[in-house]
């Protein structure tokens, strides 16, 4: 006998009140028939169990010692669809012993009925829990029609082996449970709508689920939503967007719109089609935002090419605010955008524009103020010799200045350059180089020109 069967038997008779057990075998010579005591088996309205007075006829303290027998005060906590009267009427050849005794056993060697007897008579040639899904309702009431079962009883319902079959949880159960079929009735034996709500976000749209009665005991059967095998691939996170747009996609079964918003910062079109979490719907898959596999530990340092070439991928989960966390400098933000120790090597990166410093750093606020503190800014007359690698640097700085003008402006202000490059009293060195469009400059902002030329602005 399988463990499941034992459980089932225990369930059928669970809740029988603790009372003195009647030893049938010991009384084998006293009672010639069953219905003498269990009249209710054969006669409508008669009690199924004898009352204590029946025992006292012998057990009166004189003939036999008194016994504390009392009939069960309440009916069994069971969901069995069974009536002795009905069975007696439909199967006149069946005797009590057919179910309550083993074959060839002595008279009144009774025992609780075993499920196999039910299955045998009903033509089901399998173990109890291997019975076809169409057969459950033959012997069992729907859960909602078995009000005497407690939540604990429901929680102990054995799981049929068929429910452990590959693919059953992922979708097979839904196919089998089409509303109105015998299978659906079998589902109702153990399940109510609240059980389905443990997973199904789309419960209101599922006729199979709506066909089930609402019964709060249904979720006593604990179930853990497992991701289907399709979600297990290493590349699933990257490809789920395209998969979700396929006509065959079934995302709405287990995912709410909030599932998408766990990671996605705007609502993708797919998410719009999903249901929001609300009463009457299952909570569905509970997701947490985490780094995708390709965001390796050093991804932050190397994300630029990806961001440049497929920014729409980034935008699925990130907003500009995420970018600005690092790309907008924080006064005390060590170890953000730049790698550790960058302060020591930033001159090379700045000179050759490894990245555009001015995108994130205001030259006045960041570069000049710090260089001023370090004594690097020009003060007073130029020519004091900071650029001492070449004695004639000041006279020949033009190439370096045009190549690295942004770097120059991190230490020098316009006043320094106007010392020589102004047409108003400087040495009148012309600073304009290839591509300079004087006419355009005059048209857009002639005030720039007045810094060097005053009001006598040449037109070419």
């Amino acid at each position, binding site marked *: 006998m399988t463990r499941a069967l034992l459980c089932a038997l225990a369930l059928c008779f669970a809740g029988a009140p603790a009372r003195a057990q009647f030893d049938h075998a010991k009384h084998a010579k006293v009672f010639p028939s069953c219905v003498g005591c269990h009249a209710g088996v054969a006669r409508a309205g008669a009690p199924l169990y004898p009352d204590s007075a029946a025992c006292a006829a012998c057990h009166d303290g004189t003939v036999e010692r008194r016994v504390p027998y009392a009939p069960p005060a309440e009916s069994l906590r069971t969901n069995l669809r069974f009536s002795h009267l009905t069975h007696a009427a439909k199967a006149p050849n069946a005797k009590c012993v057919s179910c309550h005794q083993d074959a060839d056993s002595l008279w009144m060697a009774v025992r609780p009925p075993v499920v196999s007897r039910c299955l045998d008579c009903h033509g089901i040639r399998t173990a109890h829990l291997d019975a076809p899904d169409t057969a459950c309702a033959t012997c069992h009431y729907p859960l909602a029609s078995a009000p005497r079962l407690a939540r604990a009883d429901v929680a102990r319902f054995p799981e049929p082996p068929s429910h452990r079959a590959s693919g059953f949880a992922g979708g097979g159960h839904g196919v089998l449970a089409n509303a109105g079929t015998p299978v659906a009735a079998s589902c109702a034996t153990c399940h109510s709508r609240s059980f389905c709500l443990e997973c199904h976000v789309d419960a209101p749209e599922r006729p199979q689920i709506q066909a089930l009665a609402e019964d709060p005991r249904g979720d006593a059967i604990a179930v853990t939503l497992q991701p289907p095998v399709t979600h297990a691939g290493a*590349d699933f996170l990257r490809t789920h967007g395209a998969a979700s747009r396929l006509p065959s996609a079934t995302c709405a079964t287990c995912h709410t719109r909030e599932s998408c*918003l*766990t990671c996605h910062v705007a*609502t*993708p079109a797919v998410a719009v089609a999903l249901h929001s979490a609300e009463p009457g719907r299952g909570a569905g898959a509970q997701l947490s*935002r985490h780094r995708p*596999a390709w965001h*390796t530990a050093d991804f932050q340092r*190397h994300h630029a090419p990806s961001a440049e*070439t497929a*920014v729409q991928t980034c935008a699925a989960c990130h*907003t500009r*605010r*995420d970018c600005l966390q690092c790309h907008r400098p*924080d*006064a*005390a933000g*060590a170890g953000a955008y730049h790698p*550790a*120790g960058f302060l020591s*090597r930033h001159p*090379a990166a*700045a*000179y*050759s524009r490894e990245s*555009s410093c*001015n995108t994130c750093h*205001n030259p006045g*606020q*960041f570069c000049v103020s710090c*260089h*001023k*503190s*370090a*004594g690097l800014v020009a003060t007073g007359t130029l020519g004091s*010799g*900071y*650029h*001492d*690698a*070449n004695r004639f640097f000041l006279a*020949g*700085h*033009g190439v370096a200045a045009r*190549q*690295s*003008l942004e770097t120059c402006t991190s230490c020098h202000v*316009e*006043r320094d350059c106007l010392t020589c490059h102004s047409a108003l009293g400087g040495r009148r060195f012309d600073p*304009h180089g*290839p*591509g*300079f*469009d004087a006419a*355009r400059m005059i048209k857009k*902002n*002639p005030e*720039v020109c007045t*810094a*060097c030329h005053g009001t006598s602005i040449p037109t070419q």
Partner: protein
Amino acid sequence: MTRARLSFLLAVLIPGAVRAQGYRLRVDLRGQAVSYRGVTLDSVPVGDTVPGVGGGPVTPDGIAALCVQGEAYCSFYRPGAPQRSDPVSTTADFTAWGFGLPGLSLHVLARGGADLGDAAVSWPGTTPAVQLLEGYAEYAQPRYVIRLGRQTQAAPIGFTGFDGASATARDARLGLDATGYLGWGLADASALPVTSAALNPLDDFQPVERQLVAGAALGFRSAPFDVRWSYERQVDRRSDYFVSERTRVDAALRPLAGWSLTASGMYDLAQALWGNVDLRLAWQARSGRADAAVGVSRYRPDFDLWTIWGAFSPTAYRSLDGSLDLVPWRALTLHVTGQVYKYDPTGASAPLVDVQSSGWRFAWDGAYTLSARWRLDAGYHAEFGPGASSRGFTGGAAYALGERVNLSAHAGTLDTPLEFRVDDASVWMLGAAVAYRPSGRWSLDADATRYAENRKRPDAAGFDWNQLRLSARVTLYFGSGTGAGGVPAAVGAMPEGPR
């Protein structure tokens, strides 16, 4: 809209924030302790100098001096005194929604900072002490988003901060979107107006009024092809002249799975010059275990027209670069990148000064995950070109102490020779860091690194300089509902509706 009207609108909205049904607040507390050592300009009478090793004048204590014929004093730079800065900052990122009008939300990003050290000049970014980076009300519907207040327009043309309004309309079905914005501008890469004294530490020329900013963008997006056009102009309100006027086009083509070709080009309408241009081909393996990119680009800096720098004709450079990322097996990641670049002719003549006009940079690094707890990484970089160069190794090991604590140690070397100044510094770094994530509600990161620097020069101006740099960061997450700590505030800030 006048400032008075804006103030009134905020006054109406702020009490509403108290009644908001949902909010997210991230508070970031950071602090550093660093010191730095520069140089100090000094002078010495010509008569006090002595001949140095190479015959040039040096000070009596051996520092090379520059003496100009006819002047009584020679100048020189002696090592500056070490200065200490202890910048601390607090950043609050607040989003509230649920004011009774679906789609309406309020966003505030503010930062407070101070330098607790003894440096003569405060650490960059700590003045003024409190800065409002963003503060706007947003009304978002599936087809449009309207923002009002201080905001940053992060368009391809650049980050533009302003106090004003922006609107975006989009049609997800057609893949179209359009954005327009208008307001009083902030300075480039700053939350301060251009009139702020904090942006002018050397008392240079400075605008007296904030500029007006106006911009627009149009975009089309589809699976195989994206294109975006951006335009922005900034106008000096006092003179009505242009501060800048730029336009840019970005396009991306994805002809095959895993392949993309992107191109962008910026044109400076104010100066009639092409700015940055980029063309890039990228490939990514479907397995995610390899990606590579190769690109050609042109870089030319942009200067606003209220400075004279644009008239000095900054020269562009052209470059060829490539990168390769590999994950040969699950535990190992490798990254290699390189670039060569060359400046356009400058048009300047300087026969006595030989300046490099080309350069290159190369870097590789890799990480190896020994186990679920251990991870090792190492890398090397070198960049040699005009002005300054650097090269060095880095390496580190990280150990995950359970799910919540990560310990790491890192070390590195660095050489930073300069081209225009005799200075060949070598640096050793050795540090340790800890990251603690006890829950989704708060986290702690701390780092301590020892720097040993040797500023090598042939004269007495060289020096050794060692220091310990400390940094710490505590991040706190608050929010209504569950999971506030696990989801960035951006999630709550985004509109609901088709993209």
